[in-house]
């Protein structure tokens, strides 16, 4: 279970988060929609423990693996080293998460096969296309089998085809998360991109959640219209 309790944070005079609270149980996927500057990335960084909020706290209860080791992060930056191969990168991150060499190798091979990158294991990250880099970033984020997965604008920089492929991958991941009990929190400014993956949706504007509710099977078009009305005032 992931619980945010009254999170507030400001950078200088600029308020980035204002009293945000929510609870997510295992297997849920929360999609947070908001325009640029709404505080989505700040919220994810607070959830990840990269920023200590000025008020409030984050509680993660997942049966013993709580803490930084429980978080996986996929953003528009891949957290991968260009001069290392895909396999070397994955094994490096696996080592930091405490996986021994044999387990790291097996886990990396399994993830690369699942993400269609098996033939890229020995290829330098620098030579990957943007779409391949984003898939390698998923492998890196999942190498330690995190109980919480945070996605920050994961479609940024992808062309239409790569974005569609990536959306399909995330849908698969989100469905798998429901059965494994993994919590997924995704922040994006594009409702159409993320809504199909979500079990819960939130609209964020000026640091606040203006709406937080279960998706309840509603179609993407309906949610997009609600978002435009509630957040953009259209």
């Amino acid at each position, binding site marked *: 279970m992931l619980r945010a309790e009254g999170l507030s944070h400001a950078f200088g005079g600029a308020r980035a988060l204002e009293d945000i609270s929510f609870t997510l149980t295992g297997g849920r996927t929360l999609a947070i929609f908001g325009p640029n500057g709404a505080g989505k990335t700040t919220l994810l*960084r607070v959830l*990840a*423990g*990269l*920023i*200590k909020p000025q008020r409030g706290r984050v509680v993660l209860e997942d049966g013993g693996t709580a*803490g*930084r*080791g429980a*978080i996986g*992060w996929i*953003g528009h*930056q*891949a*957290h*991968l*080293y*260009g*001069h*290392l191969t895909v396999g*070397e990168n994955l094994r*490096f*991150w696996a*080592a*930091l*998460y*405490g996986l021994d060499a044999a387990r790291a190798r097996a886990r990396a091979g399994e993830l690369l096969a699942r993400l269609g990158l098996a033939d890229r294991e020995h290829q330098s*990250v620098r030579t990957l296309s943007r779409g391949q880099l984003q898939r390698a970033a998923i492998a*890196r984020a999942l190498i330690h089998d995190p109980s919480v997965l945070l996605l920050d604008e994961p479609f940024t920089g992808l062309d239409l085809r790569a974005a569609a492929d990536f959306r399909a991958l995330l849908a698969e991941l989100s469905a798998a998360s429901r059965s494994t009990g993994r919590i997924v929190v995704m922040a994006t400014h594009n409702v159409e991109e993320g809504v199909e993956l979500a079990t819960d949706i939130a609209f964020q504007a000026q640091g606040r959640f203006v709406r937080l509710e279960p998706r309840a099977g509603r179609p993407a078009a309906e949610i997009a219209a609600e978002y435009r009305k509630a957040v953009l005032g259209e």
Partner: protein
Amino acid sequence: MSNVVRDGWAIARKDLLIEFRSRTAIFSAVVFTVLVLLVFNFGRDPTAVATIDLAPSILWVTFTFAAMLALNRAFQLELENQALDGLLLSPASRLSLYAGKLLANLVFVAAIEALGLPLFVLFFNVALGPALVPLVGILALATLGFVAVGTLFSAMLVRTRFAELMLPVLLLPFLLPPLIGAVQVTAKLLAARPLSEVSGWLKLLAAYDIAFVTLAALLFPYTVEE
């Protein structure tokens, strides 16, 4: 503690592998070392100032500025694809991150010194002989101190603009004690004087290492937190 060693080693090994593949900083540092030693060799007048009086200062100025290149690159490479965030997200402690960076920087600077020392002997016609072993010891002692402080400042400046310019400006005042000590001890060694004559400087170098390695390790977490 075993996790600090394990994670620190993983980070250091990764940094050295990246440098081995890219060879950008080591190449620049070696070219810099050769050029400085060459310029001083041809620029000095041996009839005006004795080599033995000038050589220790030249040696340490060369190594200090060559080491700056290593220190600058230590955290710059973590900016690629925002890998630094990945490190901070991982369960690896801030201490292991510092230890890993310090170890990689020490290996890097030691490599520059290993290449630079024979060139120094060649260009300045210095007979090291029995002074070689103690000189290597002094190199290790002084290098540990300034790389420990440099690694901390490198982390502090990595997210700032003009980090490459700021590092020498901020770092050099902190390097004065070990540099002066190292120059003094090197001068005595090259003049074949016994180490007992410089025991005060040796104590200062050792005290600087203990104080600044400890202080840098304690302060490091605050330099990388948001």
